[in-house]
């Protein structure tokens, strides 16, 4: 590499004319200009999870080695087929080529290293949601490695479809630091990034499986690669493959949607059987339960259920926290229910988007799926019907337009009357 050569030459010079000030400066300058040896980007281990599963040396190194063998490096990532699943059905190898590696352009001017150009400073090189910028964001960027996604057309526990992830890149997530990439990226580039997110998810989930399987290994036993392919990689791949089949169909909304009557019913469900009021609050300002955590935060420790009544317990929690931070965890932050009066809908403002949130819940957050009345049951059985859900959707969509939701009007300070 020419940069290294430059460095070597100037280093040699400095030994021969060591005592001269000038040559020291020249070396410094050469270092500065040549950039000498740019560090290689590397995947990092999921340390909080390793720690919570009591994985210690040398097992952590073994896990890192296996992951490197199965998935490559950030500069040269790859996927392998496992079980019945062809990896190319899940992630297009061309996508990996476009997304991974340092930011550059190839000889045709096609952008390479898209992930590092657009995503890495928040989501991190390993997709751990802890890039350099992450700590300053509220909410924190998504940690892909847990394999959970919030905004999708499929039920909780099922992966989102390709189009769901694509919609997030195109529209951004309102109310968060996730911007819309519609203007910045082309369609194929967005597809490539979605594929790379899948790759990071699969890698992260296999890493978790490996950590869990450490418990079953005797001291001195090696990991069984065939078993890993069968029991960790194949399911991780398959989960993405079957997502398309689990998309929730949404029946057309009833005709009396948008009536005062529908709004009244929606309000009733909000305060009653829907149970929304518990978290979103009497005022709909999202001021109900404010002390819960999301699943990504609970991954290391269920902070919400940690008892802190005695001084010892408080001290113990503090110790847990310090260990968590020392492993790279971001400062703990409660998850807050949405303020429904702002008119900001993170998962999208279309009626079907809100319907999905209500119907399926939001995976990874305390927002549960709606308690549906079993099909065929009579009105005596508690639960919601699909038309009830539409009333709730209607109500939620109307809230920002209620008079009390309106912000104080801005004063147009520099405005003149129109000509």
């Amino acid at each position, binding site marked *: 590499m020419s940069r290294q050569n430059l460095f070597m030459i100037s280093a040699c010079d400095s030994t021969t004319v060591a005592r001269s000030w000038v040559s020291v400066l020249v070396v410094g300058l050469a*270092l500065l200009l040549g950039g000498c040896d740019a560090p290689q980007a590397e995947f990092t281990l999921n340390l909080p999870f390793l720690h919570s599963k009591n994985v210690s040396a040398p097992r952590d190194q073994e896990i890192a080695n296996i992951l490197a063998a199965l998935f490559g490096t950030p500069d040269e990532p790859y996927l392998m087929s496992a079980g019945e699943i062809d990896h190319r059905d899940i992630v297009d190898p061309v996508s990996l080529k476009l997304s991974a590696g340092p930011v550059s352009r190839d000889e045709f001017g096609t952008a390479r290293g898209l992930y590092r150009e657009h995503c890495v400073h928040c989501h991190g090189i390993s997709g751990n949601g802890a890039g350099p910028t992450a700590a300053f964001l509220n909410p924190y960027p998504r940690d892909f490695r847990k394999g959970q996604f919030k905004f999708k057309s499929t039920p909780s526990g099922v992966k989102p479809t390709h189009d769901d992830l694509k919609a997030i890149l195109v529209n951004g997530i309102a109310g968060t630091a996730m911007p819309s990439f519609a203007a910045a990226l082309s369609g194929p580039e967005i597809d490539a990034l979605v594929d790379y997110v899948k790759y990071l998810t699969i890698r992260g989930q296999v890493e978790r499986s490996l950590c869990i399987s450490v418990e079953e290994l005797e001291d001195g036993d090696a990991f069984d690669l065939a078993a890993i392919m069968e029991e960790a990689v194949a399911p991780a791949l398959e989960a993405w493959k079957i997502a398309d089949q689990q998309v929730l169909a949404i029946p057309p909304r009833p005709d009396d949607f948008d009536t005062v009557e529908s709004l009244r019913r929606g309000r009733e469900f909000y305060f009653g059987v829907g149970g929304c009021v518990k978290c979103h609050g009497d005022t709909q300002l999202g001021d109900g339960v404010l002390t819960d955590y999301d699943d990504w935060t609970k991954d290391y420790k269920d902070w919400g259920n940690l008892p802190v009544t005695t001084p010892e317990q408080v001290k113990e929690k503090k110790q847990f926290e310090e260990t968590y931070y020392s492993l790279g965890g971001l400062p703990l932050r409660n998850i807050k229910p949405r303020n429904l009066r702002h008119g900001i809908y993170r998962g999208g403002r279309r009626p079907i988007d809100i319907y999905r949130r209500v119907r399926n819940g939001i995976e990874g957050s305390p927002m549960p799926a709606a308690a549906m009345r079993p099909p065929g049951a009579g009105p005596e059985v508690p639960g919601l019907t699909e038309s009830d859900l539409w009333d709730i959707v209607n109500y939620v969509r109307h809230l920002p337009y209620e008079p009390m939701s309106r912000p104080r009007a801005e004063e147009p300070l520099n405005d003149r009357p129109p000509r």
Partner: protein
Amino acid sequence: MSSVTVDHAHGATHGQNAGWGHFVRTYVFSLDHKIIGLQFLFSTLLWFFVGGMLALGIRWQLAYPWQPMPIIGRLLFAEQGGQISPEFYTMLFTMHATVMIFFVIIPILAGAFGNYLIPLMIGADDMAFPTLNMLSYWFMWPAFLLIGLSFFAPGNGASSGWTSYPTLSAVKEAAPGSGMAQTLWLLGVTCVGVSSMMGSVNYLTTIIQMRAPGMTMFRLPLTIWAMFITAILQAFALPVLTAAGFMQLMDRSLGTGFFLPEGLIVNNSAAASGGGQPLLWQHLFWFYSHPAVYIMILPAMGMVSDILSCFARKPIFGYKPMVYSISAIAGLGFIVWGHHMFVSGMNPYLGMTFMVSTMMIALPSAVKVFNWLGTLWGGRIQFTTPMLFACSFVSMFVIGGLSGIFMAATPVDIFIHDTYFIVAHFHYVLFAGTAMAVFGAIYFWYPKMFGRMMNEPLGKVHFLLTFIFLNGTFYPMHILGAVGFPRRLAHPYHYETFQQTLPLNQFITWCAILMVASQVIFVFNFFFSIFFGKPAGRNPWGANSLEWQAPSPPGHGNFDFQPIVYRGPYEYGSPESDTDYYPQTQPPPDAKEGQGGSGPASHH
């Protein structure tokens, strides 16, 4: 030829009690204005290096966006493969400007040269308040420390721009650098303010009270006039910045709402207070910072006038118009701050007023340029290193001044505001102008400071390289500005409008790298000459003003005789004198020795 009859062996001869305490009193907590001046000089030159490195960081990102940044990438961003994060970029330009303005330009002009030259050039033995003077230097250290610490606070340093506009700067959650780093930044800038205030009070008193016999106000060298007016500017403008800084600190930590409007939600965190107005900060900030722009150029203009006249070997053209134009710039400087805010949302009628006053401030600057040209006309120009720097100051200041007219025109400013046209403009004034004048001044007064000459050939090579590369760096920025290329973007090339400018930006970056590299020659020359330079003698340039009649370097108390002033400082080529210069202290042929304060009327 000096009229001085008493000639001590030069050097700091007084005080024989050796030891640690003596060393500390003489060189660390010194009350001597010359030591304090040198302390300022060395500190600011050190920060000049830091600021230059920060600038290279900015340029690297603009030329090679998201490519591994040398050194920094390895130290801080190894996990990302050396690629910096976007907030790091915002920190780079914020701290580059902060360091260059508050730690380099302002203190090197007022602190280093003001301190060193004022007593010498007016014929005083020291400042009026030596202890205050010492404190003005030592108040820089808390500032150095606070801003230095800011680099290690979360976000790697303040990152809301050196203008620190709320609400980005006033809400802690708004930006990575708006937390502790911004608090440290505000405190640091306040300390710089305290230091400047102490300095300016001292300069005003010294210049008014301690001039040598015969040194009337209109016999002062223009350097001193510029320092005098600068001190007035500082004394009147700084309190506003200090107050604004404290208001922002209170918004940040005490829950006041001077700059925060109602119902603000930043980064999903609601501001604790409201009812304020972000534009208020801009008004207060620019009420200081526009005069500060002149604080950053007037002393340079003064020093350049002295150098030009000395090496053209002829009197400065239009001494009094020069003095009046310095004063006019300072006066008008207080009523033009709104031109930074034409598109800020300020009442557009105000824009019209400020446009007129801003256009008018170009006038005294133009007068100065014409007078400098008049000074060159009909001289016998000696192209010494300081002269080369001074000439380049004039021609670069013309560029910086003329480009200012574009942005003074409000409709044109709509398009070029916050583009690289602005960046080009203020770098032409502050780097190509002030920094070049400072280099010239260092080469010029170095013999006085250290008793030895700097190496001329090396100095000329340094000048040539700096001159070429600085124009290569900053001139194309005008062109970028015409494209609309905005400031402060970490990666502008994903905009269709700006993507074609990458090669030009790479050209600029390489010029900037080479320009910084050229400074190695200067550093080498500077330190080499301290030990091995040619001994200078009292008056190596054949100059008139008082400092050249003192020993090099002057001892404690400066003059080994009582300087009595008979004329202005620019009497080069006077028919009255045998030589082509005519020191201010040399009695006229018909005057009696020791006549005192009533020298002959000056030639104006």
